[in-house]
């Protein structure tokens, strides 16, 4: 069951206030709907995407879920950012963004997770890492298909695949490069973005 500690409540409220509430708050209206399969943010995940950096970047707020039957239960909130430095036009309506580096942070909800291990239970720095918060390095490839031929329209549908690793995996690899290859710590996901 859900464990509502202070950090969980704070994270949920933060996520809630950032999602678009009213039409008047125009800048809060998302530029895309994002849904993803796997990629370390849930078995399935859904969220709002915002275009930033003059359309060359994105900021996504995503909620993901892993059911018990798939190795959960895990409820995950994610903030993702990425940039798209290269665009390869394929046809007037199709473009490939082949290498899009990004960063994302995931927050894992539940009784077993908190920002820090409980000070009352463990002496100082007993476990140094955060059980709830993971930092990820990512790179994606995106195939985007414009739905409206007009230059001024952003409406499009995009398919992407994304590779990522996280802070704990990276630390594990760095200290064991003799027998652990970097690819051993890379994980994948695929997704769909619908640009409005």
């Amino acid at each position, binding site marked *: 069951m859900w464990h509502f500690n202070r950090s969980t409540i704070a994270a949920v409220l933060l996520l809630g206030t950032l999602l678009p509430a009213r039409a008047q708050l125009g800048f809060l209206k998302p530029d895309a709907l994002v849904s993803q399969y796997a990629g370390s943010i849930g078995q399935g995940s859904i969220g709002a995407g915002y275009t930033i950096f003059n359309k060359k970047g994105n900021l996504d707020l995503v909620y993901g879920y892993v059911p018990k039957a798939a*190795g959960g239960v895990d409820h995950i909130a994610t903030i993702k950012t990425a940039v798209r430095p290269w665009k390869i036009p394929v046809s007037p309506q199709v473009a490939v963004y082949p290498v899009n580096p990004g960063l994302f942070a995931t927050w894992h909800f539940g009784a077993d997770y908190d920002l820090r291990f409980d000070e009352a239970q463990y002496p100082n720095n007993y476990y140094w*890492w955060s059980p709830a918060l993971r930092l990820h390095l990512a790179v994606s490839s995106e195939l985007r298909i414009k739905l409206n031929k007009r230059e001024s329209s952003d409406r499009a549908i995009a398919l992407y695949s994304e590779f990522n690793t996280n802070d704990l995996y990276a630390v594990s690899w760095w200290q064991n490069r003799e027998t652990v290859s970097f690819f051993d710590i890379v994980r994948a996901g695929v997704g769909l973005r619908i640009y409005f």
Partner: protein
Amino acid sequence: MTRTSLLLLVFFILSGCGKLEYSPNQSFDRNSPVALNKTNINRLLQTPGDDTIRFILGGDTQRAYDNTSAFVASANRVPGVDFVVIDGDISDFGLLLEMEEVHERLSKLSVPYIAVIGNHDLVSHGETVFKRMYGDLDFSFTYKQVKFICHNTNSREYKFNGRVPDLDWLGNALHDPGYFVSIGHVPPVSGDFDQALRPHYTKLLRQHPRMLANLYAHTTKTEVLPAESENDSPMMTTGGINMRMYSVITLVNTQFSVKHVAF
């Protein structure tokens, strides 16, 4: 249009190259092994062997994948070994990836290996990962008339709730008429062990007339712990595979002897 189709194809092939992950905290994936302790114990009980029981006690493979591979190479060169015990802290962060990477290396041991739960294995979803991959946290098996009692001594992870170690379970496990070896991760001398349970625990195990050895890890020191009373059976900690240490234990005619190895 053909170019688009080709790109789409390449795209989807590329996306299949990586290993899909739902969450770093997921407790299993499609290829995760299950019930390894049961499988390995069955394998052990089917080997004929001789009058001597010789096993390797190693612990704390946590975040030490290179050293775990070196450990396997070293352990495979020790003559007359019947099995290996990995005495806790298989993982550092309680993650599936860690336990799978360690298992991948340990599966190259020429003898079966048995895993005991450590404190690091209990954080996040680690307990669920461990239970599915290895089995129960308290378990025992009898090999050549010696009963090995492998149990959970990670009291701090349960906020010293008085139920870890499980004294009722231990009491029942000791009802056999033969000899015993006790194996846990956190030794009773540690502050991470429930000191309120220590006197009863010591009476049950270390002071049992047919206890041959009390084996632990966790402390990063290879140490034979001195007897605290005249009925105390031998007790030791092994320094950890992450520290490139393990111990080779031999039981002959109920006599315990140990050789420590730095590899």
